[in-house]
């Protein structure tokens, strides 16, 4: 197999408050390369196309099996996990940029604390008495309902949907698609639904469901193909019902 060189452009940033700049690199190609393995090769020999030796590119990665969510970045303008971005399938020069909408820590490393905050805000958990055995499990869940729930439980907080969403970002309080989809998941659990009202109230105010502009970008970029817009649609119905309950009587 002939080794063709790979041309890489990386948007770099030294500190959270410093301006970004571009650097270009050329590396020997290898048929197996994905973007993470490429950056690993680069850090052993971080020299730009102009021959300048620079600090290795800083980025986040861990499992490299597209299940931990760490390594998401903007690759040729598309937010996606970099471990599963095979170099052979990418147009060159390959442009790597930090995941937009989140504060840059350094280079391609971003701070996704806002996803975590969103999950707290919507109470994305099932309240249980404690982590001890109560000698029974949860109520049964039919296989069809399980299949629908399972889609949402695979969300790995990579932030791609948030990065692609025009409504989410430093300019707005919008929770974004990932935490909203967890409301859909928790409200479907047979005991999780006991707190459905609190979760729905958490998404009925500012920054909640009504801030969704229905651009549908989220569902297009989700690496796990989670039906985020379906969840948002279902939550629209749930919040409408909740609104009537709030108006006309105790629920």
């Amino acid at each position, binding site marked *: 197999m002939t080794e063709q060189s790979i041309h890489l452009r990386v948007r770099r940033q030294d500190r959270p408050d410093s301006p970004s700049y571009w650097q270009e690199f050329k590396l020997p190609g290898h048929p197996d390369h994905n973007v993470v393995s490429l950056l690993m090769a680069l850090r*052993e020999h971080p020299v730009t196309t102009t021959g300048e030796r620079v600090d*290795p590119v800083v980025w986040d990665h*861990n499992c490299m099996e597209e299940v931990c969510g760490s390594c998401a970045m903007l690759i040729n303008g598309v937010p996606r996990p970099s471990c599963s971005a095979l170099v052979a399938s990418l147009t060159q020069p390959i442009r790597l940029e930090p995941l937009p909408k989140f504060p840059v820590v350094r280079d391609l490393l971003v701070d*996704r604390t806002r996803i975590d905050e969103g999950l707290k805000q919507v109470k994305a958990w099932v309240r*249980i008495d404690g982590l001890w055995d109560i000698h029974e499990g949860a109520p049964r869940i039919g296989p069809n309902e399980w299949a629908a729930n399972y889609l949402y439980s695979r969300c*790995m907080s990579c932030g791609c949907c948030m990065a692609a969403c025009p409504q989410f970002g430093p300019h707005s309080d919008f929770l974004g698609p990932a935490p909203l989809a967890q409301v859909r998941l928790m409200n479907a659990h047979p005991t999780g639904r006991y707190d459905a009202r609190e979760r729905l109230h958490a998404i009925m105010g500012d920054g909640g469901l009504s801030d969704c502009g229905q651009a549908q970008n989220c569902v297009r970029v989700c690496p796990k193909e989670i039906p985020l817009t379906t969840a948002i649609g279902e939550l629209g119905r749930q919040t409408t019902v909740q609104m009537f309950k709030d108006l006309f009587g105790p629920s």
Partner: protein
Amino acid sequence: MSQPSVIVVGGGLGGLWATVRIADAGFTVTLLSLFEVKRSHSVCAQGGVNAVLDTKGQHDSVRQHIIDTIKGGEYLANQPPVKSMCEDAPGLIRTFERMGVTFSRTPEGLLDQRLFGGVKNKRTCFAGASTGQQLLYGVDQQVRRLESEGRVIKHEWWEFLSLLRDEAGVCRGIVAMDLRSLEVRAFMADAVVMATGGMGQLYAPKTTTSTNSTGAAASRCYQQGAWLANAEFFQFHPTAMIGHDKTRLMSEAARGEGGRIWVPRTPGDRRPPRTIPEVERFYFLEEFFPTYGNTVARDEAARAIWTVTQEMGLGLGGGDRVYLDLTHLDQAFISTRLGAILEIYRKFAGVDPVTEPMEIFPAAHYGMGGLWVDFERAADGGIANGSVRNHATNIPGLYACGECDYAYHGANRLGANSLLSASYSGRVAGESVVSYLKGFAGTRPGVREDLIADEVARQQGLNRAIQEGQGSECPYRIHQDLGALMTAKVGVVRANPQLESALSELRQLAERLDRVDFGAANPWAHQGLVFARQLRDMITLAKVVAQGALARDECRGAHYKPAFALPIPAGTFPGDPAFEAYRARWQENNHQWLKTTIAEHHDDGPRIHYQEVDLSLFPPTDPRDYR
């Protein structure tokens, strides 16, 4: 000091379970993690988690789960903790279910169970093909709830550097580093729980583990006096897929459904695989193991691949890979049966295994060894609930759980027991810590401020030394050399001369690390510095693995040293004089080697001694016989 507090280091399954159990008891937990806890390596476990529910009409029993776990580990695990873990497994599953974990269901809406390697009954709960991810998220959500109530304080993006011990040697806190600012500071606590995961990165890139599974934290505890146990036992998964960054697991199901493993008979044959005629293919598992063929056990398969590629020189293109071939099977059949796992290969290798053979090799998967932890035996043969000794290391006030401890798997781990041991040990460690805290009478004197300041200054000095280092070395290249060395000489098949040379090469790697040069690097979020520090501790850990392997002159579980193999004489059976003579040799070997390896740190290298294994429930009477 008012209310006692606890530090938990690591936010995988073990660490999060410990965190919740301690917080549930009313104590504040400070949780440190290298990254957001939900990105921990627990998410990588795909297959499932074992618990006897006996819902499949097979008369499965907890007793059988205990026996399978003990025999799978070739009797090297202490039996009381294994017994209690297997007994408590169904309760853990019920608790996970209450948290909302999306376990796969039967048509009746109950938890489904599947068959897994090494056992005869369906005993494995699963959540699609992402069980570990689902279990971790379940506990992550509970921790987030406690965090929102102020009962857990998370410090993500902090790295554990060292333990703080008072004048009596009791662990009273840690020193840690902010991975962004590189600020080094002390965190004080009344107890510390290490839940820092495995050490597969010693074998990188030929490992299925995440890049943060370095073992550095366990190594740091070891260098401060904590014992490491059974470090030489490392499970290699035979079928991991190609990758320069890491190797990704290819499920055993691919062999189970009819996949065949082969190499071309001619060394270095570079023809496309599908053009190589049948007669020129070497289906070596089928030739070596006529009865089991391609479905032979994990360790046997890994050793056969090792023999064919390393000793016979028949690896693909002269390398270390072999083919795992599904192309002879019906395409619709394999797509239905193996769809999800084949998708992983397509995604990461960019090749369709339905039409092209996969290229695979054995990869370091799970370390059975780790920090030594104690237990207290109860009258019923299990462990005593709530004893302060359970999961306590030999350093007072320091506990360990999850893959970084050594407690449940002996010489080899049963499939789908890792998520179980991580969860169970986290729960038990948490409960032990609660007992430990409740046992304090009155207040203890604080740790002397000068001791704390000295340790912080020492750690800052280590950072400075790296920043000011001069030379031509790059830590990432040294890491590659470490992985290659460990794979070649402390891997699937071991021999004493190679182990000795590995130990001397490890010393050279440590010396090269003194000559790492980052130039005038930007110190903000300096990943290279962080990694160089981890790498030094990984090399120290690798010495323990190699030293333990050198000292142990036998074959047991994942530790395979052919010069000391004790094969059953062919064609003999119990009662035959030849078999009975063999049985006597086997018993003599157990008498000498059925012992826990314990390594203690000294400046000139690890010192090893052995400890008796608690065999009080099922003493070994018969050799393993798979004929």
